[in-house]
């Protein structure tokens, strides 16, 4: 069985990006029954279109139905599941026993994957889900590699593990800090990420705040590149990237990097150190958040915590391609972040190395030469060194 690369999709554009850049499967939420309520999410019509697009590339589509539901949340669920099955969705990702069972009953062609919200971290819990006829279980991120080897060795149900992206500081699904501090439901799509806020730490009446930064539960992001060989050796069913709220550029970089690495493994049976470095560098173009390998090396108090959160989004992505004239090798681009004439940019396409070029000249749509591209969504004409298309990203190479 070939291990799947599973990518998030906050909307249709990001779904297409994930697939074009090499995801074997994508997951997203519908307008109802899904966590990440602030991700754009998909209407039923969008879902039908998404399935058509993904299946045309022979890729799979999973829909998250992963809220921890309250009594009133079940209304319309049966019809919704039937629609997902009718539209050809491959699986739902759910965190509720009742939703899993209902899915098996009313939409039997849909696979039921158990969400990480259930925090399955041992084979005894895994057996429970197998008995419930789940088709796959997403393990809790707290499982380290040593334990994963043991679990994978005993499991007779496909396993999905996280390899990249944001991490819940607490066991997923077992946290209601957001509920208490903001009344926004962490387990029904409203998480306010209160774990990342600043807190004073007291020991009885003694204040223990450090001078340099306050206490926070926030976590660094996961990046498991250095454990990829081990994970692939275990032949888990799926390697999951987190981030339904992330940008298309982020998705493109992360998926492209991991796709490259997975292809190396398939081709050579092992990913070399050099290949790991190259994959890591592709991934890093999409993010500037601190990362660590999650719990794979085992829990360490020295690793993983994120204090004094001041990191901002990466500004490497500077433009999207709107049109391309192959005869003139000229593109119309839409500006997303500022850059200047004579800056070095790179064309990022799927499956090929990025191609750097210097911006010798750029023009607005009236033909006026432009020195600084600093107006978001402005259209500019520039010469590009390779063919580009709507899925190409133009990024800035910082000196």
């Amino acid at each position: 069985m070939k291990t799947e690369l599973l990518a998030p999709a906050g909307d249709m554009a990001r779904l297409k990006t994930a697939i074009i850049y090499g995801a074997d499967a994508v997951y997203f939420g519908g307008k109802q029954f899904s966590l990440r309520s602030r991700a754009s999410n998909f209407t039923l019509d969008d879902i039908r279109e998404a399935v058509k697009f993904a299946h045309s590339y022979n890729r799979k589509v999973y829909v998250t139905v992963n809220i921890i539901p309250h009594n009133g949340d079940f209304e319309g669920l049966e019809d919704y599941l039937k629609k997902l099955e009718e539209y050809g969705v491959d699986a739902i990702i759910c965190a509720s026993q009742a939703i899993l069972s209902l899915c098996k009953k009313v939409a039997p062609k849909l696979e039921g994957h158990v969400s990480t919200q259930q925090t399955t971290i041992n084979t005894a819990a895994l057996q429970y889900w197998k008995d419930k006829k789940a088709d796959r279980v997403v393990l809790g991120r707290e499982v380290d590699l040593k334990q994963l080897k043991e679990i994978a060795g005993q499991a007779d149900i496909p396993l999905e593990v996280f390899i990249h992206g944001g991490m819940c500081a607490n066991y997923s699904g077992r946290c209601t800090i957001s509920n208490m501090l903001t009344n926004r439901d962490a387990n029904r799509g409203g998480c306010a990420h209160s774990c990342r806020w600043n807190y004073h730490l007291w020991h009885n009446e003694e204040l223990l705040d450090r001078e340099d930064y306050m206490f926070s539960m926030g976590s660094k992001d996961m990046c498991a590149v250095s454990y990829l060989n081990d994970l692939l050796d275990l032949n888990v069913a799926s390697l999951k990237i987190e981030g339904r709220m992330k940008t298309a550029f982020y998705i493109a970089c992360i998926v492209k990097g991991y796709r490259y690495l997975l292809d190396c493994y398939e081709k050579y049976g092992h990913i070399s150190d050099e290949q790991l470095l190259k994959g890591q560098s592709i991934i890093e173009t999409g993010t500037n958040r601190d990362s660590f390998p999650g719990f794979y090396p085992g829990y360490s108090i020295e690793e993983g915590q994120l204090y004094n959160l001041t990191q901002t989004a990466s500004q490497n992505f500077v433009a999207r391609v709107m049109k391309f004239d192959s005869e003139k090798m000229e593109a119309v681009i839409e500006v997303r972040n500022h850059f200047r004439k004579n800056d070095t940019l790179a064309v990022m396409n799927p499956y090929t190395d990025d191609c750097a070029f210097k911006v010798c000249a750029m023009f607005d749509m009236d033909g006026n030469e432009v020195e600084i591209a600093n107006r978001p969504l402005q259209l500019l004409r520039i010469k590009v060194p390779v063919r580009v298309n709507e899925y190409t990203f133009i990024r800035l190479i910082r000196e």
Partner: protein
Amino acid sequence: MNKLLIYIKDPENIKKFNNSNIEGFIIAEKMFSASAYECDIEKAVRIIHDGGYKAYVKADCLYQQFQLPELEEYLLKLDNISVDGIIYTDIGVFTLMKKLNVSYKGIYAPETLLTNWYDINEIRNDGIDNCVISKDITFDDVCYIANKCPGYCYIRIHGPVLLAYSRRKYISAYLHKESEYLEGYYLQEETRDTRLPIIEKEYGSWLYGKILQSIRTIRELCRKEFAGFIIDSVIYEDDYTVKTAGIYSALMDNRIGEEEAIKLLIDALPDAEYTGMEEIRETWLDKE
């Protein structure tokens, strides 16, 4: 009639409880729970049984793969010493109990996952003996569930609300020093006054919120058919638990009114911050 299950740290303290509404006591072994208290489970069960009560054991942890062999041994030991039930957080405990064919009952208490009747009905069909309803749903939802499956669910009526459970050792990480057990620590969000108790053990941290109380709802709850009411003041001393159990028992027997009960509760722990079960609102799904 709904009876009380009460968590205590020291089983010798059961003598201090003097009311007829108690079904049993909950105890916890340090290794398999959030408790820090060294408890000789075998002796504790004997004391509780000698007092004429049932003995329940709390296992409020998620267990890592390497802990399973010890957990199996522990579950068998509980059978050998004739505990009456186990209150567990990890669904894997249910699988192991079936495998080991133990004779005591299992009460599934995942804290956050049993928020509706459909899931509770589902786990009942799976063969799980009883459950504890999640604490973060409204009083109306609690009553709805109780009406739909009479006698199946326990409800936590008093005790600090568990807000989060993590594999991480937050205090050690921040202070750059590691200890076997850390208690007496609190987090205070930088713009708020409320202090949230946090404890840390070898395999993680538990963060608690205000103390949930059910003074104004207990009589309504008594009209529903629950498996029982739980008082679990896990981070407070037994003397406080003795007082709170007395207050609820007096309320249930109509010996005192709600206002007097509130006053007694405040007197029992003057600095404590409480939240009433009736104050729990339906949560929002997004930023309003």
